[in-house]
């Protein structure tokens, strides 16, 4: 469903992503993890066609995103980390607009909008301007817009930021149902607990390079210690050293 080969992105002398090889199958809920600045968002932006890779290839929904971007984008849903929406449109109007952008037939579009607004508990405030929405509500509108055209692959960049526990749980259920239909979710997150509970497979990226990929069990084998939490695996693979942090903090106190 999704694959990359030697995918790289460089900004002058800075390498954001280097030689990334990924393989994600249909029906997978794939977690993409990494520390701040590791290259997660850059990778997602290349996969959804917002950034052009410096080198390498990427296929999404089995379509080359570089060669046939429009065809690939029609099968992609994307939820950015901080979705900038049109403040002066209502949620319903924004979804109508989004449906038109993806060429969803009008009656089907309107039916889906009502379903999605109800699903995300936004039905009551569907006619309010987005400027009055909280971050979590905007995130829900953004997800609803991404689902409206029934994509094959859903990309989510930090989807749970700003969501209350109830909404986060709701999102988890929606994503799992989405995957049960044989569709793919590619999700970046900082919240390792969510990744551990939700994702079927995981990839960890650090300094733009892939350091591990597989199921949680496979990652445990990789670090050689069964029973470890994802957090411990993540810290081990990304080289974060707790003792150094403690030393620095002690230094600040003195």
């Amino acid at each position: 469903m999704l694959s990359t080969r030697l995918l790289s992105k460089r900004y002058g002398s800075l390498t954001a992503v280097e030689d990334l090889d990924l393989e994600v199958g249909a029906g997978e809920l794939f977690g993409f993890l990494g520390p701040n600045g590791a290259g997660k968002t850059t990778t997602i932006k290349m996969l959804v066609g917002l950034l052009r890779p410096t080198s390498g290839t990427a296929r999404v929904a089995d379509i080359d995103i570089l060669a046939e971007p429009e065809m690939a984008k029609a099968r992609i849903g994307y939820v950015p980390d901080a979705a900038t929406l049109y403040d002066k449109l209502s949620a319903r109007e924004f979804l109508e607009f989004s449906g038109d952008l993806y060429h969803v037939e009008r009656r089907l579009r309107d039916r889906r909008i009502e379903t999605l607004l109800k699903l995300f508990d936004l039905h009551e405030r569907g006619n309010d301007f987005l400027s009055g929405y909280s971050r979590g509500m905007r995130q829900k509108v953004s997800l609803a817009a991404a689902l409206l055209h029934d994509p094959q692959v859903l990309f989510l960049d930090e989807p749970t930021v700003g969501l209350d526990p109830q909404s986060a749980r709701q999102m988890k259920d929606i994503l799992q149902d989405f995957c049960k239909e044989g569709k793919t979710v590619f999700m970046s997150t900082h919240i390792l607990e969510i990744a551990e509970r939700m994702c079927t497979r995981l990839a960890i990226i650090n300094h733009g390079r892939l350091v591990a990929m597989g199921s949680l069990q496979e990652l445990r084998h990789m670090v050689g210690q069964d029973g470890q939490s994802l957090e411990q695996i993540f810290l081990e693979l990304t080289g974060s050293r707790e003792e150094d942090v403690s030393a620095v903090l002690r230094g600040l106190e003195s």
Partner: protein
Amino acid sequence: MDSRANPIARVVGGLAVGLLLWRAQLQMFINQTFRSRQAGRLAGAIVGAAIIVLAWSWEAIITWAGIQASSRALVGIDVVHLLSLAFLGYTAVLVFSSLLFSLNALLLNPDLDLLLVAPNPVESVLAGRMVTQVLRLMLLSLLFTAPALIVLAIALHNPVIPVVFAALYLLYPVFIVVIISVLSLLLVRFIPVGRGREVLTVFGVVLALGINLLNFLLNPALRDSGFARRPGVPPALPDIPAAGAPFLPSGWAGRSGAAVLRGDWLATAEWALLLLAVSAAIFVAGTILSGRLYLAGWIQAVPPRRRHPAAQRSRRISGALPLLNPLLASIVIKDWRMRTRDLAQLLRFAMPVVFIFIIFGLRFPRLLGSIQSLGEGPAAAMLGLVPGWVLLFSLSISLGLTAVSLEGKSIWVYAVSPNTTLRFLQGKVWSAALPTAFLVALVTLVAEIVIRPGWIWAATAILLAIAQAATVTTLMVGIGAVFARFDWTDARRMLNPLGVFIGMGLFAVITGGSALLLVISLALAGATGFPVFTTWLAAMTISVGGAVAVAALGVLFGNEHLRGLEVG
């Protein structure tokens, strides 16, 4: 010393915060220009500096020539009154800019929270803002007048002149900035959350219109009312007799300035010290008062109005436009909603019409008489195009050039959608050209009805206006795409100055060329005996054809630029 308990410490803290903010602003300016390492910005900074040097040289030459002429002619000019008048006029600018700056700082600038969470008293933060504003105003004043002051210093052998004027520029704005800042704190209590930008825009426009209208109504220089002018005031300047009154700060600044020009140190110091004392007192009082106002609840959380679903549904556009494909219709409707619901955008849209009224309406009887004296025919019909062109100039820039940048950070919504950039641009062309063509046609229709050049000439002129509105707006959308900005937070930054410059230039070429062609068509008909209507239609066809070609090129360039753009 606990600065929270000591008012003087709060004021001193305000000065420190102000200087800190000023330093940060200077750093940002340098980083964005000279240290940006971007060729475009660097070139912009160099061109800007060159223009300033050129303007300074010109100002210095004019001042020198003026000094030479006045020394020969021995004209008796009342310098005190002239300088007081200048300071009073400057007051209007100060009120206007301070109000915008204060409201902007309180409602829109994202750094207010950052400053308030720092361990500084509220008073110091608010005073710091005032200090920054005063410093900025002083530098602006110096930017405009420094060459003249230096030339005066050389000519009058008095090197202190620039220093004294710099001090006056620093002191004079204080009382206005402080009063306006305190008033702004009161005012923002009544502005609903999230409506700051709209309210700010309305204020700006109302103030600009108000000042212009007052100037038009009250300024004797703009009226032939036979007002008795004071001796020593050149006829080209407006006269407000109270400007130099000794109880007004404009009078103090004027007297101090005039005194330094004639080398009277004592009078210079007397009036400058009076200004200093009053400014300092007002600054201290304003600082303390602003803190109290803030702590009393500087902003009432007036919630944004909830929309009533029933009322809203009844007003909704159906989501389809006849003859337009659903995607393009969707872009047109979305842009229409964005522009009409955002007061700032709506004003961009409405202001040209207001200015058309001011430009033509106030001089209507005299203009109409002159045009109607031409009688029926193509010449009168052509003059009927002028209001439409003025409107087109304004609307094509405000709607066309901003059409692409209007998306701002939401551009990702298009970028991830399965549509080509050309399709997106087509939607933008429709969204800008439809309202522009409609309004231009309407204004031209009204002009032609009033002028009455004969229906056939009027009809062709209206057709030409519509065609030009469509093509020029299309061209502007293309230019706007080449110079698109998506990272703006303030709608005023949507426009790229170079884009505006190129757009204005091409507008002048298209409309000027069109007018020239129409004039040539009339001359040709007269010289060769061809029917006027034939040559007129030929000129129209060439004019519209040329505009279509330029517009198509503009869109193609815009499309190429957008295709190469990464919005990540």
